[in-house]
């Protein structure tokens, strides 16, 4: 009430308050709009995965009417490849994650704590390799995993050394190159560098060697960081497409993303089934995301600020 009767200053103040509030509402409206947009595709997918195959383009779009479980029955029961794809995806993602977390922690620890010859040389190579676009090594990596760089192997006198792993159409062909990666090593190195040494030094004094210290002290104290890396890795492996597409050839070996894409080509009229399958691909990551949300946020924040 004071405002109506008052001095110019008070009027300016009232105006500022008004604009402040207006701005807040505008920002809020913008965020709400983007939130609705972010949820929409998944929401529609969920709705239509519970509608009959014939209704895949039929309104209403907001609710599953008429409701059916047929699509889920098809992928879980009738179509037997689907559970295999889920299993293949789980198998590959879990193993890639386990190896990568361990190997990145080991290398990161060494780069942060141990003095060894050529250390900075290797670390600089690691930094450069982070900038290298993955597509340039695609063809040679494919040859190494599969038929080999040199057909029939490298002939050294009587010795014939194979130059490829022969792992085409084998889950290990997907797993092997994913077992370590530059970014993970870099992230762990930065973490261990910022971490106080005292605990480890005490353990070393007590006579544990490097390995004992690493497994008993270092790994447990870096738990948070390891979980963060594990989540990033798992999500990447679970959603990976291009590499498994090249390596895996027969439908029994497919991972879920490759399988869903293949399924669309074979049965493009059963789009509701694809939507139900998509839910299976998204749900595990979504659950993991909700449970470990703060780790995801940490990991993303970490990627940004470290580079700066």
């Amino acid at each position, binding site marked *: 009430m004071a405002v109506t009767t008052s001095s110019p200053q008070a009027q300016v103040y009232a105006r500022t308050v008004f604009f402040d509030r207006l701005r807040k509402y505008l920002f809020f409206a913008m965020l709400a709009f983007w939130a609705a*947009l972010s949820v929409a595709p998944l929401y529609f997918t969920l709705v239509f995965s519970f509608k009959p195959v014939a209704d895949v383009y039929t309104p209403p779009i907001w609710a599953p009417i008429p409701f059916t479980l047929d699509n889920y029955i098809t992928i879980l029961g009738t179509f037997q490849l689907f559970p295999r794809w889920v299993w293949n995806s789980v198998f590959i993602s879990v193993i890639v994650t386990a190896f990568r977390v361990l190997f990145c922690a*080991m290398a990161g620890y*060494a780069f942060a704590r141990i003095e060894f*010859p050529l250390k900075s040389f290797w670390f600089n190579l690691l930094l450069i390799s982070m*900038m290298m676009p993955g597509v340039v090594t695609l063809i040679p*990596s494919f040859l190494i995993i599969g038929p080999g760089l040199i057909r029939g192997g490298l002939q050294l006198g009587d010795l014939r050394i194979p130059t490829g792993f022969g792992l085409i159409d084998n889950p290990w062909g997907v797993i092997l190159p994913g077992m370590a990666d530059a970014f993970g090593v870099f992230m762990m190195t930065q973490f261990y560098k910022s971490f106080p040494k005292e605990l480890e030094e005490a353990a070393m004094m007590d006579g544990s060697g490097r390995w004992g210290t690493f497994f008993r002290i270092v790994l447990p104290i870096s738990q948070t960081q390891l979980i963060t890396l594990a989540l990033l890795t798992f999500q990447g492996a679970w959603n990976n*497409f291009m590499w498994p597409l090249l390596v895996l050839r027969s439908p029994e070996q497919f991972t879920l993303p490759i399988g869903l894409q293949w399924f669309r080509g074979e049965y493009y009229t059963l789009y509701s089934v694809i*939507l139900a399958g998509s839910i299976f691909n998204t749900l595990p990551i979504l659950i993991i995301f909700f449970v470990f949300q703060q780790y995801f*946020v940490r990991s993303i924040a970490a990627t*940004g600020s470290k580079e700066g």
Partner: protein
Amino acid sequence: MRTRTDRRKWVDALNGYLFISPWLIIFLIFSLISLGYAVYLSFTEYNLLRPPRWWGLEGYRRVLEDELFISKALPNTFKYVLIVVPIQTFLSLVLAFAMDQNLRFQRFFRTIFYLPSVTSSVVISLIFIWIFAPQGIFNQITGLTVNWLDDPRTAFYVIMGMNIFTTSGTLMLIFLAGLQDIPLAVYEAAEIDGANGLQKFFYITVPMLRPVIFFVVTVGVIGCFQVFDQIFVMTNGGPLDSTTTITYLIYKWAFRDTRIQMGQASALAVILTLIILAVTLLQRRVIEGSGSGAER
């Protein structure tokens, strides 16, 4: 004493290499040797059936004379980067700025915004194919009758829009972390000097965030130059090659065409790497150069 430190040095050297060996082996095989071999292959003719045959720069010449590369893949890729990177960077920055205004439900929004990034590229592509089908939900809501993904005028833009949509959430979180590092005192000082919201955004937020912006743009550029999954799933480079990008062309030449040309595909991969390198360096100069007036 001397021998003891010597011994310690040896043990450290041995342990150091043992600790990095799993990463090092994978790095040597799949990065270093692979890179070297890619460069070698780029100077050869190779179709997997016969051993690679050295032909010098012929592969590069053929790439540069290839109609599909010159008139489709190259311009498409640049168009894609030039449209997607600025929009996703600006959009995610604005969203992060809005979230940083201490609004209610911040946690809620943060979670929701990240959802599209959690979904795999294949799944989101399959969903968008369905949403943008002629009878799909998008046409139902808007009342349009466009055949989005079969029309060479629209298909590429749908893919661009989808990728902006999926990456903005992640980038927004990166910006938000950067924003929360800016000391409040700076904003308060500006307020005392009478700066309004827009001025604060352009004269404080943007300059203070320069390193984060550089990071987000770099990641965006590297990623966008290699866009593949969505194109493979949604359009296979079509209609009329309107969505063929360089990475898709590499894949096509090396793995899909009936006449496999791994040498020529490697030459294109090397060219793409050089393009990415050049653009990254250029962009670093632009972002750092434009800040020469400011502090830091």
